């Protein structure tokens, strides 16, 4: 009843909202343009996939869907993907939690070091772990062949290998989520429980853990989506263990079966969307807001020797594994021919910068164009969504966040379906790659932008409008400078994603425009592991350089100081 009334009130407001918009032509143009872009480059490709898979002799039909599920070659990858996703999520969340708990609650040494190591897999290309797995435990692997002399054979192709590399890659997500959640719990709550007579174990069991449950659920769902969408690792390690993301690709590229590929993409999309919606609209509402007073004094840390050194040992072990994996790639990039000739050499790098230079140049150029564009677009959308009133606002927010939920493989297939014919014939151009980069990673920028904007008192912008500035000027002169930290965070994230992207772009690269990640995949397929390792190291170096540059720029402008001051004012 109340909902209907609210909806009617909303409908009544629309004409006046529209009338207001017409008085600000620039704002109106902005909204129309942004909506058009979002529609063409996010909604339309998805629609094309649905259209292709659900249309039967010119009529819409769900029959196809049941047909899909009756075929073993569709169901098998679905089961595999879900199976793998669940196990990776469980393992990744547990490890992430242990790590986050150790760093936030236990008095262990080297906290900063653990913190950096745990977040490193986020900026590394996701399939690096798979590559390292082969270097370590493959047929000619460092451990399997050189140390153990092939006494034990490791089954790294298939479920086990994928579970290991995806867990090592995606536990970072759980770590970051849970670190935030554990940090946000008011220390006074744990103090109070202790004060009332609870032992440290009881405090954990009755207070800390229950309060972290929404965070744990959130981390689980995030990892689940990431595992479902993972493309690089299964391309290298899946073997006969077919999973949806790669199977869809192989069906289209290997068997030229568009319809079959689209169908698999739909099967991949459904659980991803479910996980996304659960995370965003259900779990995130369960979070407890625990900070009610001043962010009270320091947290009491666990210092019992058993807990302390036990946790320290676990953290050490895990970081050692991460170092071993990435270290192996660096080592591998300096040998002549992995498995046969281990003389140190720079040949691989020489090759990367001569024969592979085209890949590097393209990747850097396209990323450099896409990154600022995506960053700016994200801030514009965040501004419109938070500060302006117009019909369809919620839809704009939803669509821009949707890219979060859609696995890259699905987007890639959507793009080749959507932009293959006149008037939007873009296949083979640089534009399609840039557009894909921009719209693929929009969500994070939009989300950080929204979060940042909600912290800033609207009256600051109202003051600008009051003094005669129009919407565009207010955005440019007031809003944008205030949300610079979010803008730069968005830039950094987008750049990393562009540099490491593979799942979606693999569908739209061409002979003319190609990317490093694709080159790495090619090298692995040719068993040229040393070459692939060198390419990977180069990507990492470029990413670190770019992050350093962005950080440097932010510090140079003294943005941090200014903004924290603003925030303090707003609070």
């Amino acid at each position, binding site marked *: 009843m109340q909902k209907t009334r609210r909806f009617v009130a909303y409908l009544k407001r629309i004409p006046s909202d529209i009338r207001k918009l017409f008085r600000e032509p620039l704002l109106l143009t902005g909204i129309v343009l942004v909506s058009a872009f979002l529609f063409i480059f996010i909604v339309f490709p998805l629609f094309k996939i649905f259209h292709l898979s659900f249309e039967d002799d010119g009529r819409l039909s769900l029959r196809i869907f049941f047909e899909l599920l009756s075929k073993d070659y569709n169901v098998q990858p679905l089961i595999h993907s879900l199976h793998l996703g669940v196990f990776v999520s469980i393992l990744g969340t547990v490890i992430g939690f242990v790590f986050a708990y150790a760093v936030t609650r236990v008095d262990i040494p080297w906290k900063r070091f653990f913190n950096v190591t745990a977040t490193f897999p986020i900026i590394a290309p996701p399939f690096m772990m798979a590559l390292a797995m082969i270097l370590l435990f493959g047929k000619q692997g460092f451990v399997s062949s050189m140390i153990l002399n092939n006494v034990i054979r490791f089954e790294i192709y298939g479920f086990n290998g994928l579970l290991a590399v995806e867990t090592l890659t995606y536990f970072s997500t759980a770590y970051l989520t849970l670190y935030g959640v554990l940090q946000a719990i008011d220390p006074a709550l744990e103090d*109070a429980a202790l*004060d009332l007579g609870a032992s440290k174990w009881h405090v954990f069991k009755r207070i800390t853990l229950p309060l972290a449950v929404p965070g744990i659920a959130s981390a689980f769902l995030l990892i689940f989506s990431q595992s479902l969408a993972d493309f690089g690792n299964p391309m290298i390690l899946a073997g006969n263990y077919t999973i949806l993301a790669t199977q869809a690709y192989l069906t289209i590229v290997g068997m030229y079966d568009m319809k079959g590929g689209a169908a698999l993409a739909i099967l991949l999309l459904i659980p991803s969307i479910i996980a996304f919606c659960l995370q965003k609209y259900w779990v995130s509402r369960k979070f407890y807001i625990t900070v009610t*007073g001043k962010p009270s004094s320091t947290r009491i840390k666990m210092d019992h020797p058993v807990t302390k050194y036990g946790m320290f040992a676990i953290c050490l072990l895990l970081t050692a594994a991460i170092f071993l994996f990435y270290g192996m790639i660096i080592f591998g990039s300096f040998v002549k021919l992995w498995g046969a000739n281990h003389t140190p050499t720079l040949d691989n790098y020489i090759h990367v910068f001569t024969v592979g230079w085209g890949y590097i140049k393209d990747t850097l150029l396209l990323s450099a164009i896409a990154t600022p564009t995506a960053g700016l677009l994200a801030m514009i959308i965040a501004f419109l969504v938070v500060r302006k009133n117009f019909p369809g606002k919620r839809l704009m927010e939803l669509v821009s966040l949707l890219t979060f939920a859609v696995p890259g493989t699905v987007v890639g297939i959507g793009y080749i379906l959507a932009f293959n014919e006149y008037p939007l014939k873009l296949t083979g151009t640089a534009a399609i790659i840039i557009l894909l980069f921009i719209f693929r990673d929009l969500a994070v920028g939009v989300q950080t932008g929204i979060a940042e904007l909600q912290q800033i008192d609207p009256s600051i912008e109202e003051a600008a409008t009051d003094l005669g500035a129009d919407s565009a000027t207010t955005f440019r002169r007031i809003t944008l400078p205030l949300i610079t930290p979010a803008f730069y965070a968005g830039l950094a994230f987008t750049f990393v994603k562009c540099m490491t992207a593979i799942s979606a772009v693999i569908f739209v690269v061409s002979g003319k425009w190609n990317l490093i990640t694709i080159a790495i995949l090619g090298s692995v397929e040719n068993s040229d592991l040393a070459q692939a390792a060198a390419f990977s190291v180069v990507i990492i170096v470029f990413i670190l350089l770019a992050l350093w540059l962005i950080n440097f720029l932010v510090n140079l402008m003294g943005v941090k100081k200014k903004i924290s001051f603003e925030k303090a004012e707003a609070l």
Partner: protein
Amino acid sequence: MNQPFLKIRNLSKEFLSEYQAEKVIAVNNFNIEIQKGEFVTLLGPSGCGKTTTLRMIGGFETPTRGDILLDDMIINDIPPNKRDTCMVFQSYALFPHMNIFENVAFGLEFRNLTKGEIKKRVEKILELVGLSGMGNRPVSQLSGGQQQRVALARAMVNEPKVLLFDEPLSNLDAKLRIKMRIFIRRIQQEANITSIYVTHDQEEAMTLSDRIVVMNRGEIEQVGTPEEIYARPRTTFVADFIGKRSNFVTGKVVEYGPGTQEVEFWDRTFTFRGYDHLKKGDTVTMVIRPEMIELSDQEGICNGVVTMVTYLGSEVNYEVTANGQVFAVEVANPLKTGVYHKGDSVCLNFDLDNIYLVKS
């Protein structure tokens, strides 16, 4: 009978500051003896060490030096969960995933009580704080005042030997704060629980306490009843910190004999009694509260000119410049005394027995 219940001896706390690894003294040589059932307030500006002292008594911080004795037992090394103290936190620290009943019952779970006993005790305390029958409500739906009551009930239900309050009223609005402090005082007296209360609000300290400990820069400036603290401040800090505004006049002891002291202010000599600790040549500060000064047209101790008038109905606040110094003067009942205007010449009068000398 009058054996002190809680004794704190030479308590000190030093922190290493996070960045420069520099030693920061938060509490220095804190000494006090507290009787059973007494309500003692630690009062001082932020950063004076009052919260650190409280957290040491609660067991959340380990003292660098000194001892805390409860019932003649040193409790320095007893962790908070084994210590017979309970704290009411500034942020209330109610467990957001539990309802009122579960919050209050939490501490009793660790005391070998049957479910029935726990229920009985929780219900009794909820009745005491005026929340009976509300046990099933989630704490997120409570108003600030109700949350405060739950926090108080949760601490009191354990019948701790000492109840600790860490600025518990600072998150409430002004009206509710006044209501709650009367409430806290009543409950504390009814239950006769020894309480230590931290605040920076002197009015709160005045209304609640049997004794006030004024702290500054980690050290005790003065311990005394509210009246002693206001009327007989021992240091200029206390005189300045307590009360709305004080007037300070600096002078010198010129003559001192048994029982009487002659002090020179503004080239005039005044005779005081009862300051035997002063010696000739000491610099002293005269503390004159604004309400102690009377204005008149006749002769007075000194002459001045009214430079500002603020009429508040029940009182009038003046600023009077006299002997090159601005005096704050508060005159109650202006209908009776009449109101002076800016520019009027007036005489200032005050009773030497009421004002107080502080050795600088």
